[in-house]
């Protein structure tokens, strides 16, 4: 099942590559149609997924026995939502790419290969395999930014590539070190996550390895001060690139921290709570503050990502039931809302060929539907109750308050700052009288554009009103992660940090 989910986009890419470039009108529609297959598979996976702890739909095959590397796949409550999110965002990103006129074939092929790699990252339970997918993501994304981006695309693409490659270089060393340690302790090397969790690491080694993993993922997230590649990459990338970058690629970092740092190095994770928490809060406040002063709408959304991703990292390392669930569900929320915001910015850019906030004004008179979607997504991003952002940020903040009260109070200011930068941007772009002649004649959204936004808006509302649809599938996995951390370290989650505390105390009253 999961293998099919990875291989279908690859096969689709090969199929499209075989269609000659001169039939360029075929590639995009066919690409969208083919990317519906993984989406259907992902929804089927979602439906099959049982709300229990542990990995499901696992597949194991030996890849190269002497090295102990295997094609080990499986998903749990932490990775499943991200797989579905990826499969959902790719057709939308492709649908938003009608303005790609040069080399359409290559564009669609790279997007589909990117999808395969991204799904692979979330499904891989073997560190070698994980690393392969983690790096494989870079190449198509590099081309997508570098070929189809705006003016400074080559610089932005290179910066993106070098930053992330530097991170994964350290990750590679740490992975090698784990496998060699496994060979020392058990006689055979192994890269399987399940095997490596059981390693007995000296404290010093564990800290170094934690750092190797954490730096790689922190660059991806990105955590301040390793974030400088992100505004450039986002601003220069084409719309589809920005959607996938914000929607999925950044989640490789937060997912990696949740999946690998917490489970492989529980003791160091517990020890590093403060460091990671401070970095996360720094990102929340800094990203939001910088977003306020951005004159470029796309850069504003990019910096808002830095801020929002900070919540996820804070939730990850606050180590309570609520904060972990919040982190996981916020992964999805951020993908939906920020993906939609980039989509919206792309739509206005296609009309006006500018992203400067100062160029716009009074758009809600001429584009009411567009303005409605923008405001809706902005509210979701701010965390208005009833919409999905509220659920994630609320869970993170409440969960973090148990263990990191000071930091979670500071983090809460991020929500206020989000309201400032998004609503102020909304005010400047949409309210008042249309400022220029060009703004007065803008078309409102077409049916195609509404069709791209509608599923995202619907999910924002569904998760906002009934988060249980995701949380019941997430909770068993985050609980078992906490159990594992408690069992392997002296750490206990202070009351009422565990789900059990809440339920029991609720019963008493």
């Amino acid at each position: 099942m999961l293998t099919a989910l990875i291989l279908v986009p690859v096969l689709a890419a090969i199929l499209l590559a075989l269609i000659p470039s001169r039939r360029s009108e075929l590639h995009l529609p066919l690409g969208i149609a083919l990317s519906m297959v993984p989406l259907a598979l992902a929804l089927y996976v979602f439906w099959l997924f049982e709300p229990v702890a542990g990995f499901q739909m696992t597949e194991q095959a030996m890849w190269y026995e002497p090295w102990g590397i295997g094609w080990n796949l499986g998903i749990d409550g932490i990775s499943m939502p991200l797989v579905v999110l990826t499969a959902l965002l790719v057709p939308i990103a492709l649908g938003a790419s009608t303005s790609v006129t040069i080399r359409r074939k290559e564009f669609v092929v790279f997007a589909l290969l990117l999808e395969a790699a991204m799904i692979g990252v979330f499904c891989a339970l073997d560190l070698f395999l994980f690393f392969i997918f983690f790096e494989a993501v870079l190449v198509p994304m590099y081309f997508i930014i570098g070929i189809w981006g705006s003016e400074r695309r080559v610089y932005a693409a290179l910066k993106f590539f070098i930053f992330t490659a530097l991170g994964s270089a350290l990750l590679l060393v740490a992975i090698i070190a784990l496998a060699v340690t496994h060979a020392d302790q058990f006689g055979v090397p192994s890269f399987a996550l399940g095997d490596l969790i059981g390693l007995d690491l000296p404290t010093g080694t564990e800290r170094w390895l934690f750092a190797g993993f954490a730096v790689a993922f922190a660059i991806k997230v990105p955590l301040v001060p390793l974030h400088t590649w992100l505004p450039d990459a986002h601003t220069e990338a084409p719309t589809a690139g920005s959607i996938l970058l914000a929607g999925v690629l950044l989640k490789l970092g937060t997912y990696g921290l949740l999946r690998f740092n917490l489970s492989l190095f529980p003791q160091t994770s517990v020890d590093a709570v403060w460091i990671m928490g401070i970095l996360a809060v720094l990102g929340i406040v800094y990203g939001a503050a910088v977003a306020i002063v951005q004159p470029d709408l796309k850069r504003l959304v990019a910096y808002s990502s830095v801020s929002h991703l900070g919540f996820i990292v804070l939730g990850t390392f606050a180590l309570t039931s609520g904060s972990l669930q919040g982190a996981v569900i916020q992964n999805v929320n951020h993908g939906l809302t920020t993906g939609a915001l980039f989509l919206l910015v792309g739509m206005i850019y296609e009309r006006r060929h500018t992203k400067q906030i100062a160029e716009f004004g009074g758009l809600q008179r001429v584009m009411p539907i567009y303005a409605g979607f923008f405001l809706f997504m902005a509210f979701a991003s701010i965390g208005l109750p009833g919409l999905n952002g509220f659920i994630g940020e609320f869970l993170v903040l409440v969960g973090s308050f148990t263990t990191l009260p000071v930091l979670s109070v500071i983090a809460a200011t991020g929500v206020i700052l989000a309201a400032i930068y998004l609503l102020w941007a909304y005010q400047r772009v949409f309210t008042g009288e249309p400022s220029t002649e060009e703004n007065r004649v803008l078309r409102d959204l077409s049916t195609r554009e509404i069709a791209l936004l509608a599923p995202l808006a619907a999910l924002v509302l569904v998760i906002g009103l009934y988060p249980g649809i995701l949380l019941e599938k997430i909770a068993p996995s985050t609980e078992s992660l906490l159990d594992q951390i408690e069992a392997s370290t002296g750490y206990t989650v202070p009351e009422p940090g565990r789900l059990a505390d809440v339920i029991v105390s609720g019963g008493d009253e």
Partner: protein
Amino acid sequence: MIPTPEISWLAILPELLLALGAAAVLLVDVQWKPEAITLGGLSSLALLLAGGATVVQWAHAQDALGLGNSADLIEFSGMVTVDGFAVFGRFALLAVTAIGILAGWRYLDGLGRRSAEALALVLLSTTGFSIMVASNNLIMLFLGLEVGSLALYVLAGLTAERGRADEAAIKYFLLGSFASAIFVYGAALLYAGTGELEILAIRGFFAGNILASPTVVLIGLALVLVGLAFKVSAAPFHSWAPDVYQGAPAGLVGYMAAMAKIAGFAAIARVFLRGVPELDWSWLPVAAGISALSMVVGPVLALVQDDVRRMLAYSGVAHAGFIMTGVVGGGTPGVLFYVAVYAVQLVGAFAVVAVVSGPSNSASPLADYKGLSNRSPGMAAAFTVLLLGMAGLPLTSGFIAKFRVFSDAWAAGFGWLVVLAVVTSVVAFVFYLRIIVTMYMDQGEGAVSVNLPARWVLAISAAVTILWGVFPAMLLDLARDAFPL
């Protein structure tokens, strides 16, 4: 009556066939003056036969290994040992020669009456290096090195365009001879210190004896290392490489560089890992130092080049450093796997250079590659795969190779070297990407026609780069037994 020693012809059969092939090419040319294609066919036949002989040797080596009895290995009077290591090295050399001839075909064909000489020299250099990978004796090693290198010196200068090629050939010859002299002096000192020339016997000597004053032996080892480091263009002995890579005929540079790398690293692995592991306290830090220096110097200098040939030369320095981490890690299979996949990528990359800049032109400015993705999409795609392979991205053979040598080095306790290696790998990404950017993101004029042999080279080299990256077991299983006995 003097007893004649029993001669195991099988041990040197591939070299005999290659040398005979070279002679046949020259004789046929004198007698019948055929078209170059006939001579090319004759050379391929020689390669094919040599390959067949190597397969037979491989079967023998497998049997000997399977029985756990290294005494059953085919030997040639203690001079040559046909173990898994030698067989793997020979396979690599023969395969690289075959695709090297294809890659350089336009150039070889264009030489007119001198194509016979060039083909004969190619076969002779392969003969020399083939002896080198199997030699178990320092004299034999030197002979193989010289036979192979001398042929390469001539090939470097054998081109229609004089100036640069002459400079390259003379520079290569002078510095190369100097390095060979250093090597042979080192071998002599080793002999003076131990009284042995056979690598196994040297090992035995150190296993049984402790030298009160090992100075002579240590100087000898240092000189041997310097001589071989020169051949593989490891820093700080690399300064010849960019000039030679630039001046020598593009069609054959890939072949020349690949052969020197394979044979040079085979020799380093055999002499140091097999011969003097007891003295590793002395040479291991030096090898690590050479490795570290190469990994830093290569990528950094490649960054500032504007000529693709010089970039590839400096990338070769970087790769020498990466492969050296495998030597430091003590894993000969990893070393041989790396040189094999790198050799294939190198030949493929220079096949592109030969097409883009002309087979004998000595400049290959980056500007020539502008918009190559439109002018020749297939070649641009293949070159991209090769460059990503050299950069060591996952799903290419280059990644598996790097992974392997880095793991060995880590397990051997050289963590700092591994960290340095991965960081410099990232630096190297920059100039590989620079070429890719030029091909895909710049606009260029003029269609490029790729000749058929070059198409084959590109298809084969790109295909195996991905194939060995996705299914590494194919080559790794073959390399598993590739350790010297």
